[in-house]
């Protein structure tokens, strides 16, 4: 069965970023219809009904999140668009913003109407220069067309979109970190509760949604709830807490594949199908050793490890919101699939991961600040062939004890830092032990030395 892309339908058209073209393809009709026909709470109800789950990583139901805004709040209420896409190997938001910004902005308009926001902050990461310029141009077009500003389409609805460029920190992608950064402070995630939907930016209710989520909102309102629910994976009847994984998803393929690219598929494609069919297989005729199902913070799948209670190996797990959990990963994350071939040392991979999280830990909570740094120091030693057997236990201990799941940190960065380390060590322990026995020095010790970090 071949799937016709919806979110990415327009990206190859000439001038896909322009309002004119977007309108020719039926753009902003859904928004106009929403303004004419639906009350804000009806929009919320539709999104809730569609089962749309946040595409930013945690997979929280978007409609449910919108209902957390206190009823009858006098305002202001804010929408914050999380375009701080910093998870390594993830670039699906970037494609949407660079190639089809109006699809996202229509979602911003609809969502702002639904939650009764009068200002939407679009927080874009510093590194996305082109996306920033494209979006700014698109926002300017909207103001000129009367789709932003006062009394939009004579409906009495006002909305301003403020495009804010970050300063380059992974933690700004955490929703409360993003809010702090937006307020002009150091992006230290806030303690929750209160959740941002109750008290967020400037101490007002704030809904933080991912770019892809908002593009999905556009499509739900354009094509209907039924269409959205026809795609993806329904909830597991045996698991009452499963909310299902409906709708299309942008998967990004990176690492050792022949064709690294972003593909749109209904949720639930298996890793094997994604890599072998859509990614053109592993490069240089090698085999996949490990796969990262959704950004490095989700942990690793070992491609030849048989699944418990099911046929196939971890290579065959479906990429929906539940699949990676079955293989001990943290979740679907951003659905950025990174393939690691069988010639690559897991020690180098884990070192790289540790370097990233140690550099990006905001430094607020002790366990994460010191834990990520310690793991990096140990992995640095491993790369130089000076690992010890007890280091593996220390790494596991540290990786287990940091994060919101054990309750020792404020935000989930530490979980994301611990998960790849512990899944790698659990699943590839013999490789680490072999390296300890042989005192293997990494091939990349010299070339990848850290020179400076911003």
């Amino acid at each position, binding site marked *: 069965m071949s799937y016709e892309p919806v979110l990415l339908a327009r990206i190859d058209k000439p001038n896909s970023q322009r309002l004119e073209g977007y309108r020719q393809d039926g753009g902003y009709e859904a928004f106009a219809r929403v303004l004419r026909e639906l009350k804000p709470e009806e929009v919320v109800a539709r999104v809730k009904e569609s089962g749309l789950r946040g595409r930013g990583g945690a997979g929280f139901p978007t409609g449910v999140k919108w209902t957390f805004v206190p009823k009858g709040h006098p305002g202001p209420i804010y929408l914050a668009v999380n375009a701080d896409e910093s998870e390594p190997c993830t670039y699906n938001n970037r494609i949407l913003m660079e190639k089809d910004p109006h699809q996202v902005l229509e979602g911003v308009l609809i969502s702002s109407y639904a939650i009764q926001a009068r200002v939407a902050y679009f927080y874009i990461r510093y590194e996305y220069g082109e996306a920033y310029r494209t979006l700014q141009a698109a926002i300017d077009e909207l103001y000129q067309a009367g789709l932003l500003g006062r009394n939009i389409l004579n409906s009495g609805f006002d909305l301003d979109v403020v495009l804010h460029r970050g300063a380059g920190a992974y933690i700004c992608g955490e929703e409360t970190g993003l809010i702090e950064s937006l307020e002009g402070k150091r992006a230290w995630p806030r303690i929750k509760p209160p959740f941002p939907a109750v008290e967020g930016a400037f101490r007002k209710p704030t809904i933080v949604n991912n770019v892809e989520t908002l593009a999905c909102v556009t499509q739900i309102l354009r094509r209907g709830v039924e269409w959205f629910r026809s795609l993806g994976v329904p909830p597991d009847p045996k698991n009452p807490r499963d909310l299902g994984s409906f709708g299309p998803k942008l998967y990004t393929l990176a690492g050792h594949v022949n064709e690294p690219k972003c593909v749109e598929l209904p949720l639930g494609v298996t890793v094997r199908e994604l890599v072998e069919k859509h990614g053109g297989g592993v490069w240089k005729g090698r085999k996949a050793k490990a796969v990262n199902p959704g950004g490095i913070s989700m942990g690793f799948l070992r491609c030849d490890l048989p699944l418990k209670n099911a046929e196939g190996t971890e290579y065959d797990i479906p990429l929906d919101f539940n699949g990676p959990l079955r293989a001990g990963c943290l979740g679907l994350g951003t659905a950025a699939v990174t393939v690691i071939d069988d010639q690559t040392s897991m020690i180098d991979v884990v070192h790289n991961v540790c370097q990233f999280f140690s*550099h990006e830990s905001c430094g607020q909570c002790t*366990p994460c600040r010191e834990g990520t740094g310690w793991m990096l120091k140990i992995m640095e030693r491993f790369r130089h062939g000076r690992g010890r057997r007890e280091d593996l236990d220390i790494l596991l201990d540290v990786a287990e004890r940091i994060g919101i799941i054990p309750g020792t940190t404020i935000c989930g960065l530490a979980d994301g830092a611990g998960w790849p380390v512990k899944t790698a060590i659990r699943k590839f322990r013999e490789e680490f032990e072999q390296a300890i026995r042989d005192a293997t020095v990494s091939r990349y010790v010299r070339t990848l030395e850290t020179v400076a970090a911003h």
Partner: protein
Amino acid sequence: MPVYVNDKPVELGSQRWNCIQAAQQAGVFIPHYCWHEALSVVASCRMCLVEIGEWKDGKVVMQPKVVPGCQTPVKDGMVIVTGEYDRRDPTLPPLPYDPAYLQAGPPGSRAKKAQADTLEALLLNHPLDCPVCDKAGECLLQDYSFRYGRSTSRMIDPKNTPPNKPHISSKITLFTDRCIMCTRCVRFTREISGTGELCVVRRGHHEEIDVFPGRPLENKLAGNVVDLCPVGALGSKDFLYKQRVWYLHTRDSICSRCSSGCNIYVDSNKDIVYRLRPRYNPQVNGHFMCDDGRYGYHFTHAAERIRRAGLLQQPSTSASNDPDYPMRRWLAWPHLVSRLRQSLQSLGQQPQRRVAVILSPFLTVEEAFLLAKALRSLAPQAQLALGPVPVVGDDDRYPKDVHGRPVEPTRFIIRAEKCPNRRGVETVLRYWTGQVTPAEELLRQSWDALWFAGGYPEAAVVEAALPSHWSAPPLLVVQDLFPSPLTEAATFLFPATSSFEKEGTFINAMGIAQTFPRAVRPLIDARSELQLAHELLERPGLVQAAAVRRELGRAIPELAHLATIDPPAAPERIELATV
């Protein structure tokens, strides 16, 4: 419903507490670094991790994760299990914990491990240079590591060694590597002083406290960040490497440098004051004190202080031009006091002779009362006046905004009136004379005898109060700390004592009477003003401030409550009452 802390029920009423405070009510201590009662909650140090649960349907269901006690509000029926569950009162019956919870280990084992993990993490990059660290002995990192931590480090890799930052302030230095990033200091400058000099720079384990370029930590409350620092990262340059803290004797006292009357601890060794620290008093100063007070103790040990009592000897013949005269003769106290008493008595027998007594606002209530009583009994015609009251600018209110303007609500006030006891001395003066006369008025007139009871830490205040063509009266008695034109001319000169060297009561700007014990012994040849008055009254032995307090409490209705208060049982105890 009560809240259970390590199986102990505690009723908290309607007060909103967090777990640390609730546990404190139950007598259980939960260690913490970043949390401070006066500052906002950041829940980042992760030292106060506890396990919480709820008692319902006959069993206690515990949450699977640990939570920071500082951030978790206590609700009715909540069950708190701390890492020290195994040290709970063994006579208490254990709560019916969920069997599934007990399977994972004894109650509190998760919190215990989480706290030990936090300490292990904090020590990873800590230099462990306790032998040369000023904080050693009163360091919470030492204390908690000893009580909750592991005894060995599992890290064999090199520690981070960020450079120290002595430049952050003229009074404060930062040992960057010792910092545990609790950010108390940063929050203090943002929330209490409002000046916001401190910030956090860099990220992850390379994170550091710093100041903004060109804006050092210079505000009048800056010294508090040293007290707030739970480890040895922020050091007071004033105290640095002067004393090991375990040699210090700590006494409760009251700051005498302004009329706020901040409650302080005086840390001294061998009668030398080395450091002042604020002592918590919610009615007066909260948790903090200002730098004027904090570093304002040095006068006590200044070399220029008047050390001995003496008499001014005039030449034997009035025509003599001997350049050695007039000459100061240092005499033993008993001789001086009896000669002084005789002089005053002879004046008292001649009611037309004019006698003035000036009582400074640095005196305690007891001293002012007893001096007034002694002089009025020797020379009943004596006029009483309030000594010069030093006032500098306006009351200084904190926090301030970026323009230096105070912001409501006020969290700290440095008073413009730079003396501790104007209200107390005024109360005494009103009792004896029915009014308060300023000293400046009396100093303009000519007198046969003038008694100046000073105790001014700065002689400039005394000089400023003197009229330009002031000439000394035939009999001038001066008690003061530092040389001034008055002490130069004094017929009888007595060394005064500083507030650390005496006990007594100050009444602060808000009318709160606070008694304090003596922190250090006075200079060898000095006796307190109270003792001098006691001897002038021909009372035997050593004076007891508490007895004088009872005496004046019976005499002065406004201070009647001072008579009913028992003397302090221990030097640390302080009585507190509002006038």
